């Protein structure tokens, strides 16, 4: 059995593969959004002066970053029913990916917030801002600039990592490829197509990411982003997709 172009082309336009790819996209987006929310709360908790509160956040981050996502997914989907907690495939996949993402994003968020100069806190406080106002008006808008590039990379990672959900039979792109491969044994062609789909998604995201980053990469001087973008010589986002 050698390489078959007709099979390859058939898989390339297969609605089944496209559906899998679409699942990968929405699964990644939904997990990311929930993960960011979780990570945001965890980061603020971790920075709390209350030891219990920061301890809880620290435990969560430690536990989830210190264990493989694959193990987490299997525990959620196959292990929890033993305790009477039964989650469907989709719920398990989203929960696993989101809670895992939250642990990583919490650290990104925290480093973004701590990167803001201490004097900004003093100035905000001295003007009578509460913690909440200070965060809203002064700290988070500045932290965003530090957070956006790694956050973009996290989503890029998520598009690929979501393939792990195939082990709990989530019908995303990899699982679709696996199932096609089992029917016709055109393994190389099928997985090649899957790889191309992944590459298309990550490349497309690379373009989006570049635009977002150049928006946030502006110096704080009110000039438009085009001028700032033109100033930059090397664009790290452009090489990012290729290097992974």
């Amino acid at each position: 059995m050698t390489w078959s172009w007709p099979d390859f082309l058939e898989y390339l336009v297969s609605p089944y593969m496209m559906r899998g790819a679409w699942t990968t996209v929405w699964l990644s987006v939904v997990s990311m959004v929930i993960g960011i929310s979780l990570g945001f709360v965890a980061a603020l908790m971790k920075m709390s002066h209350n030891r219990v509160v920061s301890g809880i956040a620290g435990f969560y981050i430690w536990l989830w970053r210190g264990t493989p996502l694959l193990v987490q997914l299997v525990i959620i989907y196959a292990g929890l029913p033993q305790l009477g907690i039964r989650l469907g495939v989709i719920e398990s996949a989203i929960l696993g990916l989101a809670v895992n993402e939250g642990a990583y994003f919490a650290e990104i968020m925290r480093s973004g917030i701590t990167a803001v100069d201490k004097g900004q806190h003093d100035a905000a406080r001295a003007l009578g801002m509460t913690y909440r106002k200070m965060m809203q008006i002064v700290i988070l808008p500045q932290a965003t600039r530090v957070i956006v590039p790694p956050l973009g990379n996290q989503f890029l990672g998520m598009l690929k990592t979501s393939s792990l959900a195939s082990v709990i039979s989530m019908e995303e792109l990899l699982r679709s490829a696996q199932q096609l491969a089992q029917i016709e044994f055109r393994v190389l062609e099928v997985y090649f197509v899957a790889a191309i789909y992944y590459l298309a998604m990550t490349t497309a995201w690379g373009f989006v990411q570049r635009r977002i980053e150049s928006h946030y990469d502006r110096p704080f001087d009110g000039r438009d982003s085009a001028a700032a973008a033109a100033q930059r010589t090397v664009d790290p986002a452009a090489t990012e997709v290729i290097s992974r």
Partner: protein
Amino acid sequence: MTGQSSAPVRPLIRIQRVRKSFGDNLVLRDVSLNVAPGEVVVIAGRSGSGKSTLLRCINNLETIDAGSIYTGDELIGYRQLGGKLVPMREAEVARQRQELGMVFQQFNLFPHLSVLDNITAAPIHVRGEARSSAEAYGRELLSRVGLPEKAHAYPKQLSGGQQQRVAIARALAMRPRAMLFDEPTSALDPEMISEVLDVMIDLSRQGMTMIVVTHEMGFARAAADRVILMHQGEIVENAPPEEFFTAPKSEATKQFLSKILP
């Protein structure tokens, strides 16, 4: 406040036996100080003598270990609860801080906001003032500090002296009862110092109560009602400028003056 009568004026800021340490480092040793409405008090002293810490305690940016601080009749940072003093809630602390404006050595302008937005952020988002009136007052303040044309500039586009003048306008926008300055000209190139001091002298003439940590003794001579020397966490000299410069009592002040005056 001009035309003070001989009747005792109620102090606007009352600092009573304030003690503060960072770990084992006792930084303020039972410091007491009264500042009358309209008074300008200059605080000098060696680096590390506790000047910044004292200012930060007045504004509750640092908590104190003992003693008490009042603005007007209000105890800073604590309230009575069943005969005991308990730390205030965050919202009350924030409200108290609105009464005092603060200007920092490093300006600490918000880099992501335009000059006008820097000035109006707190009036709008903290005090709930309407944008239109906050901006009108903001522009008025910008004129007062000599920068009417910089409303839409960003902090990074301004010189140090201009940034510090914006920082003063930003603090004034909350209509504080008193202003605290922590070495406002120490981070400036020499040629920009006077533009900031001029704004401060103006402010003192308009009757603003001010506590100014500075080594600009020219400013002390021109605007201060009293000059204070801090030494190792204590106030060792507290006198009108003439007396401070010509007849200092403490050894630390004499040493300080011999170094700072030609």
